[in-house]
């Protein structure tokens, strides 16, 4: 490999090293430490001046205690499972909402598409937090939604939506919808219209052509969209803590509480490391899928 090429490849690796690997090693180290009332609130800390013996001493104090603890208290695995469930369900709901929107955009007249695209991206122009707070205003008992439903006479009592899992689903679907729409839209937009004509020519109705041609060919977009929603939703913290109730159990919330309420950094770090390990599986699957897709498009 020539040096220029090596240099080019080095840049992203340095980036990865600085922004992922180094912080990860630090977190991993903390997760193997013990909690202590000090600053920083864990022990041991590496004393470089003690030299080789210091390092040995340091390493001998690290253990897997915190990971064992995670398996002993059922709060943790329940939180993981519940997060997984919420992430799966909300990814599915996002797909249900996102696919028709992407399909509609891809079939809209050419001159409309930039506008529609703009509308999908527009929410990003305001702060995420503000938008989540806005949903609190919409979903609360005296909120717009309830007022509207009461006004139409559909309900006589306000619905309790805020501080339930329903509100969390609404929040996640709303927040991550663009990540679902955009990849699906880009595959549908690339779809060669003559394929649908060929399907019709060979005896398909419009509907069967959709099932046999459009849907299978949009699969890469659907998969990409699902991963892009599922991965952040799994570790989501802001939405469940603002829109969810006391019974909404998500690992992101547990993590936050360990860090800031209990000040138990080692356990919190262990939770984070396990979460990362859980996320690596779908991320690797996603990468493999992307590679296969690129292979197929060549």
């Amino acid at each position, binding site marked *: 490999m020539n040096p220029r090429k090596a240099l080019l490849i080095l840049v992203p690796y340095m980036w990865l090293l600085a922004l992922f690997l180094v912080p990860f090693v630090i977190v991993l180290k903390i997760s193997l430490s013990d909690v202590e009332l000090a600053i920083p609130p864990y022990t041991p800390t590496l004393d470089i001046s003690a030299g080789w013996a210091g390092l040995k001493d340091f390493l001998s104090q690290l253990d897997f205690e915190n990971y064992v603890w995670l398996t002993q208290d059922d709060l943790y695995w329940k939180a993981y499972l519940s997060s997984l469930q919420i992430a799966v369900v909300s990814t599915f709901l996002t797909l249900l909402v996102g696919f028709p929107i992407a399909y509609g955009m891809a079939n809209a007249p050419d001159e409309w598409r930039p506008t529609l695209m703009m509308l999908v991206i527009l929410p990003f122009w305001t702060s995420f937090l503000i938008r989540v707070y806005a949903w609190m205003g919409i979903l609360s008992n005296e909120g717009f939604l309830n007022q509207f439903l009461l006004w139409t006479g559909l309900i006589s009592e306000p619905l309790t939506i805020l501080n339930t899992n329903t509100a969390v689903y609404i929040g996640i679907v709303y927040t991550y919808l663009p990540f679902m729409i955009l990849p699906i839209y880009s595959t549908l937009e690339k779809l*060669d219209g*003559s*394929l649908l*004509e*060929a*399907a*019709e*020519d*060979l*005896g*398909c*109705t419009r509907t*069967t052509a959709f099932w*046999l*041609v459009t849907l*299978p*060919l949009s*699969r890469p977009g659907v998969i990409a969209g699902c991963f892009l929603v599922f991965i952040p939703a799994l570790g989501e913290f802001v939405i469940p803590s603002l829109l969810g109730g006391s019974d909404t159990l998500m690992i992101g919330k547990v993590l936050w509480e360990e860090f800031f309420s209990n000040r138990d950094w080692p356990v919190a770090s262990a939770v984070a490391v396990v979460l990362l390990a859980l996320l690596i599986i779908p991320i690797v699957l996603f990468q493999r899928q992307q590679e296969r897709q690129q292979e*197929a*498009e*060549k």
Partner: protein
Amino acid sequence: MSEPAPSTGPSVFAPWNDPAERPLIQFQNVTKRFGDFTAIDNLTVDIYAREFFALLGPSGCGKTTLMRMLAGFETPTEGYILLDGSDIGSVPPNRRAVNMMFQSYALFPHLTVSENIAFGLKRDKLPKDQIAARVDEMLRLVQLQKFAGRKPHQISGGQRQRVALARSLAKAPKLLLLDEPLGALDKKLRTDTQFELMEIQETTGTTFVIVTHDQEEAMTVASRVAVMDHGKMVQVDTPDRIYETPNSVYVADFIGDVNLVEGTASAHHRDGKIEIHWAEGKPPIVGTPMQPIADGTRCTFAIRPEKVHISKEHPEGKSNIMQGKIIDIAYLGNISTYHVQIPTGEIFKAQTANTRRIERRKFTWDDEVWLWWSETAGVVLTG
């Protein structure tokens, strides 16, 4: 097109000359506009069952549009298209006994070669073994048995074209539309496939409408050729008549190589022949007009290069003799085309078969030669 073909035996396939024959497809004053652009312009034509109807014309003249109207993807802006006597304007593509091979192939990228071919058969809910047998037959026909399990992106352009052909043939439709079906094939495979197509046509009785840019192909396979220009059919005729008796300069120029000479007609005494005065101080060209031409009409004399004889000696007792100098020779293997410049500057092309090896050729550059042709060899065109 207008006058009946010379009387031929009853075995010759020419339903268009038989007034009792009912056409399979009728275009009745069909116009197709995209916005204010007219792609098909008031077109009326009949296509008969078992015909091999070839559409020939420059890019953008409306060939694909015509096919798409037959397949049902476009509806005529004006006029009617009848299939078997009934208007098919409102019949959706999946209900027409018509299959189309797309110019872009439109193969399903997520399906294998054999799944692509089976696609239409599955829609007909045929039994599995019947589908498999038919797919096998089609694969054999296009010589792709080895590639049955590959996806379209794993095969070459020519192979893709053959898959598209097989897929459109699989359902054995009443009418098959082929939009440049053989363009990406090499010469040998193309010739093979052409004969294959003709054989399929004979055995199944399918009617073919085929778009091609290859005149030789149109000449080989077609029962009739339609030469199109700007959404109109300029001439619809059998291949030999299109070639021998084009009805306009456009057709003569579009099909094959031709020498064109413009001039003014004057009536000639001998059996309807006329003289064309084409240059000051030059003897007029004697030719046979297709229709009677009035004195003084501007007209174009068209003659194919292979009908122009070339010799070193002055031909005795011939009409239409010219002398010139060879300025270019195009050697095409079996034939050579000589570009001969006559003293007034015009260049005539003459073609001869290369019956001898190239080094024994009779003529070479800068040779003074004589050109001549018979009085019936060319046509006189007024359009």
